[in-house]
């Protein structure tokens, strides 16, 4: 059997990769791709904890399904914002969206 630690390490690695993408990418859509990786890492943890504790308690799976809804909401609004910004400023590079800085 695969011990729980493997799944947790796997999820942590995926989370770190997503974090790296969020921190370093210049394109706003690429940043959202990184956020997706992080959300998936969280979901792996939730499902793994469900499987490795009491399987009759469905809380882990319910939370995972709710994370799907959150991810969908995040993506739809996030990408809508990116498209809206693109139409006004003609760029999706996050560094150049600095209007609020001064």
């Amino acid at each position, binding site marked *: 059997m695969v011990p*729980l630690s493997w799944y947790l390490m796997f999820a942590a690695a995926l989370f770190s990769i997503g974090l790296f993408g969020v921190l*370093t990418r210049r394109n706003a859509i690429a940043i959202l791709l990184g956020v997706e990786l992080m959300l998936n890492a969280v979901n792996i943890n939730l499902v793994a904890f469900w499987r490795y504790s009491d399987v009759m308690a469905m809380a882990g*799976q319910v939370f995972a399904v709710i994370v799907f809804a959150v991810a969908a909401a995040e993506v739809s609004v996030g990408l809508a914002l990116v498209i809206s910004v*693109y139409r006004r400023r003609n760029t999706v590079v996050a560094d150049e969206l600095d209007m609020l800085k001064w």
Partner: protein
Amino acid sequence: MTAQQIIFMIVAAYTIGSGLMVVTTRNLVHAALWLVSTLFGVAVAYALLNANFIAVVQVVVYIGAIAILFIFAVMLTRKDMRDSGPQMNKNWWAGALVAVLVFAGLAFLLSGWSGFRNIAAELPAEFDAIGLLGEALTSPEAFVLPFEVASVLLLAALVGAVYVAFNPRSDKK
């Protein structure tokens, strides 16, 4: 190593490799396609965890809808899809450092936890995960409120996204 461990290792390596491609590829459509590959790997991980419903939903929602939305968005925000200029900001090494530190910190914290090396129990016979999930989502003692709130969340996302992206007044033309 048992067969299951080998399968897990292959799946994890494949998923993490695809994940690395997502954050490093220059072409954004390729990055989105690598994301699909990563998400498929995660779906296989769910299947290994006996979460059939979550695994299939992962493919339906992420690959069938979210990835398509990403590809559409990439094509909507590029007059010229060939990416010019660097794709990472100049502090990428700091980002890499933070990511490695976060991974090390998580690994350190988790390894100190008592349940870290737990082994999963066998699934009970006649285990009906979807029935249990349906009961959990609709029972007032369990998660009926999150169930309805999810609907409100999706409504808010739909209305907000439609308003933000396509409000006629927000167009500069």
